[in-house]
């Protein structure tokens, strides 16, 4: 685990991450990709500190079957230059540790009005506002390790 100079823990968990393009045929930039759980559904998610909310892949949303009476919207959100319509929910994001402790946070989730096929290779996105804002994290880009703790 990582520590502050005074010995306090900086991170309580660590898990492997991918640092590469989500889809080599469609982009030529590396992304930090994690495997996380949203309300019990596993999904590959890109760390998107310039984004907002947890934008959930419809394949995962399909399994979760959100209660639409608990949503707000619909609203449009821009993702990679395209505008997507969808609704906002509250749900549980679990980051599983490979070593150390896993943790769960209550986050805002945007569920696009799209099928899994339409969303395709686009991943789930973990944005800053409403999702990563209370997660302390650090990345080892050589060993591809994601260190994290509740902030």
């Amino acid at each position, binding site marked *: 685990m990582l520590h502050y100079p005074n010995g306090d823990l900086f991170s*309580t*968990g660590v*898990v*492997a*991450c*991918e640092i590469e393009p989500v889809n080599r*045929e469609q982009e030529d930039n590396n992304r930090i990709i994690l*495997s996380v759980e949203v*309300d*019990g*559904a*596993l*999904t*590959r998610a890109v760390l998107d500190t310039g984004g*907002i*909310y947890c934008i959930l*892949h419809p*394949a*995962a949303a*399909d*399994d*979760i079957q959100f209660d639409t009476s*608990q*949503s*707000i*919207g619909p*609203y*449009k*959100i821009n993702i990679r230059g395209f505008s997507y319509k969808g609704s*906002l*929910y*509250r749900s*549980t994001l*679990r980051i*599983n*540790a*490979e*070593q*150390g*402790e*896993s*943790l*769960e*946070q*209550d*986050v*805002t989730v945007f569920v696009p009005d799209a*099928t*899994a*096929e339409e969303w*395709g*290779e686009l991943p789930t996105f973990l944005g800053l*506002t*409403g*999702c990563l*804002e*209370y*997660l302390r994290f650090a990345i080892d880009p050589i060993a591809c390790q994601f260190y994290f*703790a*509740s902030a």
Partner: protein
Amino acid sequence: MVAPTLFIQNGFNLTMGDYSQNPPLDDYLLSFFGYHYSQRKSLAEPVTSTSSGSACVYSLPIEEPTIALPFDMEMLKLERAARLEDDVQFAQLVNQTDWQYRSVDDYLHTVQLALSIGAHLTARKLAMEGGARFPDHAEMVKHARVLAPVRTIRTGLPPQPEIAANMRWLKAHRDLYRGKWVAIQNGELLAAEVSFQQLKQIVGNTKNTGILVTKV
């Protein structure tokens, strides 16, 4: 509150303040009188020396007698900023508004405007304030709950090393399964299909199963 700058003269003429050219004003009038802006005629060039700023006089085919309009300048400005997708001005206007006299509908409408232009922090601030002020209003409370800051629910949960095994499988087999939907569990391939629907017919609902479904 900003003083009203619009009133009816002689039953048919309107004097408008410096918002006379704004589309939201037409929408606002439409909601009261069933009038359309294309029907209005200007009776005078804009006057710039009035105490409330520039003004125009218009003739409108409306049937209401002379009344003072409940002209909500603050909401009109917010709607205008939202229409122009000016999130900076929108946030400034929200901060200038005295929300303690505002209704739950005003809160909800402004939260929705904020979300529509991507002013997510402003939407959160208003939703939280509105939720605290109107704790018995289900829709307001729902907005506050959905847009609230992140809250840590549980820490100290056991590790799950098998999650990393799925990542390793993807890294090792990506080129072989490119373009296919795959289901992986504990680092082992369960199924690979061309379409998501075909894969789901095989693996079913994967919630709480530890199965990762993804397109490679």
